[in-house]
């Protein structure tokens, strides 16, 4: 029955498309996990892969601010 329901769903929406940005090529895993967790907490992460160190966000403004603040804090050390 679950398979059938899945098929019906696919009938109406075979692919779900979300606009946004892919974040990748982080300097290190800590940078990735801090930024990704922040983005996840504010609910803008559509997809993440901790192994690959990549995530997809549908909104970037708050992430940009967070990264800016984070960079400043790290420079101060």
């Amino acid at each position, binding site marked *: 029955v679950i398979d059938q329901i899945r098929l019906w769903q*696919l009938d109406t929406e*075979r*692919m*779900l498309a979300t*606009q946004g940005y892919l974040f990748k090529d982080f300097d290190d895993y800590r940078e990735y996990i801090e930024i990704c967790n922040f983005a996840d907490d504010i609910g803008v992460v*559509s997809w993440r892969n901790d192994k690959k160190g*990549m995530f997809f966000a549908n909104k970037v403004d708050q992430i940009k601010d967070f990264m800016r603040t984070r960079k400043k804090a790290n420079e101060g050390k």
Partner: protein
Amino acid sequence: MFSYFLDSLHRDTGKLGIRTLVECDPSIKSIIVNIDNDKNDYIIEDLDESHLLIKDNMVSQLKAKLEDRLKETVPIVENDSDSDRDVK
């Protein structure tokens, strides 16, 4: 990383346009990969078994092509009442 992000954001909003994340069933994904094999016009990055990164300006074209492929492969059943009861 930060400069990379600004660069990529600039590129994204400029020449390439915003990217689109496509989430679909693995079987649908394999069809999309197959469509892309012709010209490599759609997929930017293969993310996992059910996610692809697609060029934003190509999404509607890809949807149309996917519909065409599915019409070719899935036969349309006519006069089907969707009920098992009419099977006697």
